[in-house]
């Protein structure tokens, strides 16, 4: 190998740091996955010590994603999904649920972590009739996401924007409301926003203790929000029944799903 090639390689290789906990891998641990490292497991355990139901809450979020996408691809007839904050693939990923209902559904996954994207490209293969694409972008750069997604999605047709347990990583200084507003401005009437957000006002003491520990151990900080703050994301939209609720109460598929503890505000809304 020449010196130049070696230099190129160092510049071009998306190294990642396993000594600091990473949100996608912490989440993977809560879901029972093995794509995590010692620092991730330590942070995940610390969080569980503060809020023992966090693993159940993470599973609630996955179950909710399945129900929400099932509804959107089914009754609502949506064929295009923009899933921002993909995370390490788990069971019932957006395209699997959507394409099971509508094989021609088109899904763009967005994440800002190279390892997540490598997993996503591999484990989230599309059906033959539909399409999946993967963007390496940060939610703070909504315009970049929209430009990239336009290669796969037709923004003159309805799109479901999925922001599942991701906005807690956007601090108030980065104005999450402006980001969601920018995304919604790019999609036509009849589009949807599906959003889940860790709650500051459900199990408040435990959630506060968990946030503090995560913020000590994770590179990406978290801001949990209260019901009213999460409701603002839906300003100008029509919330579907049952409105903004804790994840297990959003159209639970079984008594077991309804009982599973969680601290996540959830809503699915239509753009009029």
């Amino acid at each position, binding site marked *: *190998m020449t010196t130049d090639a*070696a230099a190129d390689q160092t510049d071009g*290789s998306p190294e*990642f740091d396993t000594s600091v906990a990473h949100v996608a891998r912490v989440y993977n641990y809560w879901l029972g996955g*093995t*794509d995590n490292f010692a620092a991730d497991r330590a942070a995940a355990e610390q969080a569980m010590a503060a809020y023992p139901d966090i693993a159940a809450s993470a599973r609630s979020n996955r179950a909710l994603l399945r129900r929400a996408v099932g509804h959107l691809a089914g009754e609502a007839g949506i064929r295009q999904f923009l899933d921002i904050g993909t995370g390490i693939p788990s069971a019932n990923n957006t395209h699997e649920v959507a394409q099971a209902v509508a094989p021609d559904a088109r899904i763009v996954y967005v994440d800002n972590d190279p*390892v997540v994207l490598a997993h996503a*490209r591999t484990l989230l293969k599309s059906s033959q009739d539909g399409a999946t694409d993967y963007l390496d972008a940060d939610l703070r750069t909504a315009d970049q996401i929209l430009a990239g997604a336009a290669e796969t999605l037709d923004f003159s047709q309805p799109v479901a924007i999925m922001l599942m347990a991701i906005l807690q990583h956007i601090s108030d200084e980065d104005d999450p409301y402006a980001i969601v507003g920018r995304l919604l401005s790019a999609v036509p009437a009849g589009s949807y926003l599906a959003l889940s957000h860790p709650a500051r006002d459900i199990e408040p003491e435990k959630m506060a203790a968990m946030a503090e520990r995560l913020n000590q151990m994770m590179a990406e900080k978290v801001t949990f929000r209260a019901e009213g703050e999460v409701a603002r994301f839906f300003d100008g939209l029509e919330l579907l029944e049952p409105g903004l609720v804790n994840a297990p109460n959003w159209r639970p598929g079984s008594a077991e799903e309804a009982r599973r503890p969680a601290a996540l505000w959830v809503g699915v809304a239509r753009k009029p």
Partner: protein
Amino acid sequence: MDLVQQPLGDAADLTHQEIASGPTVLRMMLGSQLRALREAAGISPDEAGYEIRGSRSKISRLEHGRVGFKERDVSDLLTLYGVTDERQRSHMLLLAQQANSQGWWAKYDDILPDWFETYVGLEQATSLIRTYELQFVPGLFQTEAYARAVTLLGHRSAPAEEIERRVSLRLKRQELLAGPGPRVWAVIDESALRRPLGGRDIMRAQLRHLLEVGLLPHVTLQVMPFDRGGHSAAGGSFSLLRFAEADLPDIVYIEQLTGALYLGKPEEVDHYREVMNNLSTEAETPADSERLLKKIIRAT
């Protein structure tokens, strides 16, 4: 798999997953359960070994799933560990019984060294195989002719019949790809694709076969081009196996000329997972890999 058809008592049914896992993984599962029970009971390996007329190393082999189980041993250990619940006891005895049965690969005993038999057994029970290959096209993706060329490299003086049995074992393993088996995620070094094993025609056919395999829904191919990946790959080829059973840890498999390493300690697995993640992010994306593969085919 044959095991599925065996009738099971209803008192302590094995889960479908346990049955489909095959004997190698059942041994590991049973072993790790026995270790957990022993530790919970505060009993040393020496004491446990004595109970079953053996030594501490016999307990170690059992707990690591390296050997089969005698039902009497399992029963005595359960008693020693204070497990009296009949359901739990009969479930574990049933596991021991199943773990002693033979996999389909047992009939290749004559050509299958122990170290590789373990791999074939594990492979059957995976939910995800991630593999990095520097030298050859991964075994699961080889054409018959290419597999024969690779086999001949290693066994030049073997009789033709033995070569054919080795090739046939390799092809038999590929039945995993017909589904609903594991996802296979391979990073293949460009050199493995440029080296014309068996000659240009065989290699061209092999590369075309790779293109087809890459289209399977549960297979992903990434090519590591010559100009990348040097430092991550310093350790050579390896595989990372993940199992459908949630309580089994991931395992790193490293093949050597006359044996293999199976690494299962969390810090070792973490290290290889980190390298594998680096390789996957450095390699061409699956879409670009397909383009590169087509380019290599044209040049072959």
